C-alpha cells in the first residue's frame, strides 16, 4: 500500500489504515515529543494530542510535499502549545567562562542518538525548544520568533547559549570518561 493509499484510507475512516499510519510514524514522532517534553508522560500527552489532530485534519493534506514533514509540523506545533501552557521561560543562564569552549569533532563523534537525546533534555526549556526548532527541525529564527511569540534576537541568543551549554556538557562527559 502506497502512502497515498494509506492517507486516503485514513480519510475514509478505515481503521486498519489509521493503525498502519500510526505504526509507521509513531516511533519518529515519539522521538520528537521526547525532545520537547520534560518527561515521558508529557511526551505521551503531546503525542496523543498531536495524532488526534493528524487524524482530524488529515483531509486537509494536499498531497504536496512530504507527509512525514506535515505530521512532524503538527506534532511540533502541538508540543509548543503544550509548553506554552507552562509559560516557557527564555532565561539567560549565568555561566562561568563566557567563552565558548573549543570542542574537537572527535569529542562527540562517539555519542549515540540516545546520548544526544539526553543532552538535549538536560537543557533549560527555552534553550531546548529553540535548539530543537532551529537545528533539528530547520526553522529560521524569524519563524521561531513567530511561533513562540518572542523576538528573533531572543531566539538567536537562546540558540547560542544552548549550543554552548551542550558543548560544556560534552566536555564534562569527556572528563568523566577520562
Amino acid at each position: 500500500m502506497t502512502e497515498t493509499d494509506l492517507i486516503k484510507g485514513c480519510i475514509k475512516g478505515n481503521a486498519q489504515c489509521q493503525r498502519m499510519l500510526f505504526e509507521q510514524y509513531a516511533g519518529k514522532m515519539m522521538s520528537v515529543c521526547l525532545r520537547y517534553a520534560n518527561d515521558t508522560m508529557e511526551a505521551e500527552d503531546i503525542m496523543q494530542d498531536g495524532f488526534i489532530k493528524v487524524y482530524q485534519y488529515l483531509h486537509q493534506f494536499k498531497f504536496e510535499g512530504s507527509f512525514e514533514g506535515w505530521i512532524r509540523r503538527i506534532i511540533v506545533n502541538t508540543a509548543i502549545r503544550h509548553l506554552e501552557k507552562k509559560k516557557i521561560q527564555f532565561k539567560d543562564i549565568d555561566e562561568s567562562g563566557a567563552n565558548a569552549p573549543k570542542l574537537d569533532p572527535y569529542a562527540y563523534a562517539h555519542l549515540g542518538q540516545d546520548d544526544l537525546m539526553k543532552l538535549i533534555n538536560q537543557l533549560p526549556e527555552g534553550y531546548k525548544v529553540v535548539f530543537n526548532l532551529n537545528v533539528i527541525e530547520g526553522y529560521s529564527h524569524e519563524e521561531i520568533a513567530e511561533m513562540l511569540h518572542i523576538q528573533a534576537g531572543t531566539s538567536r541568543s537562546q540558540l547560542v547559549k544552548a549550543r554552548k551549554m551542550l558543548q560544556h556538557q560534552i566536555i564534562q562527559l569527556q572528563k568523566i570518561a577520562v
Partner: protein
Amino acid sequence: MTDNQFDNFFRENLINHTAPVPEGLWEKIRPEKEKRPKGFFLRKINGTGLLLTALLVGSVIIGLLTYQHQSSVPATDAILNTSRTNSIQSTQTTSIKSGNNSTLNSRPANQPILQKNSKIEISDIPINQLVDNTESVSLKNQSVSVLKSIPFTLKETKVTGNEVISEFNEVLNKNQSTEYAQNLADGINYLSANIQPASLFFQTESYNSSTGKVQKSLASNGHDKFIKSSIIVCPTTRNRSGFNSDWSFELFASPDYAFKSVTNISAPQQYLAKKDSSEQMQVGYSAGIRIVKPLNDNWLLKTGLQYSQINQKFSHRNENEIKTTTVITSRAIVRAPGDTVHVTDTSTLQQIGYSIKTITNHYRSIDIPLTLGYQFGNENLTIGINAGVIFNITSWYQGELLDTSLTSVPMSKISNAIYKSNIGMGLYSSISIMKRINDNTHLFFEPYFRYNLSNMTNAQSTYKQRFQISGLAIGLRFDLNR
C-alpha cells in the same frame, strides 16, 4: 569545529531517531468511532438520525395499529362516518345492492327515476331536479339518497326531523311528482320514523349564494340508542356557540438528545477546548403530564408539567496523581543466644502517575410547557403541529466539570457560581402523530425541539453555555368529558 558541524551532527543523528512508543497509546489515539461497541446503534447516530429513526418506528407502529383496527371492525356493523362520506349504511343492504344503479344526471324527462329497491347515485343535477350531490342512506332494507346539498336553504340551524321532511316535501311538490321523488320521500319518512323525536343538525360548510345550494354534513345529536345500536364513530356534541367542553390528559416520556453550544466571553481558549473535549453528550430523557384543552375541532391548548434530564459523560485525566504506599519491614536480629532484637522499619513509597476520571453529569430541570396546536385528520389518525413556550421552574446539576485551572470540580458546589438555578424561557415546537387505540385513548408520537432562549450560565461566568434539546415524546392521551 564550527557551529554548523556541531549542528549537523545533531540534526543527522536525531532527525530520523525513533523512540519506543508507550504501550496502549494507540488505544487512546484511535478515532472514537472505532472504540464504540458494535451493535449499540443509538450511540452511532446523531440527534437528527435519532429523530428520523424514532419517526420511522412511530410510523410503523401506527401503521400496524391502523391495520389491526380496520381488521377488527365487524362487517355487519353500520358505520356513520360524517367526516368523509356522510353516509349511513344499513346493517342489511342486500336489497339495495342487488337493484339497479341509476344516475339522475342524464335521465330523460319521461324515464322513471328509480325502481323500488334501487340505489341512487346523484350528483350535480340542476336545482329543479332537487339535488346536486347525494349521500346514500341505507336503513334496513330502505334505500334512500339523502341530499348533501338540497335546494332549500338551511344554514346552521337545528330543526326537527318533521321540519326537514315538511320542507323536503314542499320542494318535492314544487318540482316533480315522480316515483323517484316518492322514493326519496319514503326514505326520509323512514329516517324520521327511526330518529324521531330527535332533531337533526345541519351544519353549513359552504354556501353558494348564486344557487342557494348549501353543502351540509349530517350529524345526529344525542341519540344514544340509535348511535349505540348502529354507529361506531359519532361526531362529538357541540353546542351552538362552537365552544368545546372536551378536555384531555396526556402522559408522556421521551428520549432526548441535547446539543450544547458554548460561546466564549473571556475564558482562555485552551480551557474551553479542554472543557469541550472532556464533555460528551449522551441520551437523556423527559417525562411529564399535560392537560389538553381543545378550542374547537382543530385548535387546542396544552399545558402541564415535565421533568427533563440531560446526561453528559465527563472524562478527565488528572496529572501528577500521587500514590503513597507504606512498607513495614520487621526482622529479628539475634545478637546472642537468648538476645534477640526485633527491628521494625517503616518506609513509604510514592508513585507519581495519572488517573482518568469518568463520570456522568446530570442536568435536571422541571418545566411548564404552554403550547398551541393545530391538528387535523380523522377520528383514528390525527396529525398535529404544536408550538409554544416552555418555562423553567427550577434547574439543578450534578457531576463535575473543569475549572479554569483545568482541574475537575464538583458541579454542585459551584453550581451557583457558574450555572443558573432557573434557565428562563424556551421555545417549543413539535409535530404529533396520534392514533386512536380505543374510544377514549390515543397513542401519540411527538418529535419535538426545544430552543432555550437564555444561557444556563451566570453573568459572572467566563463563557456562555446553553442546551438545545430534541426528543421524541411517546405517550397516551386520555379523552375526558366526552
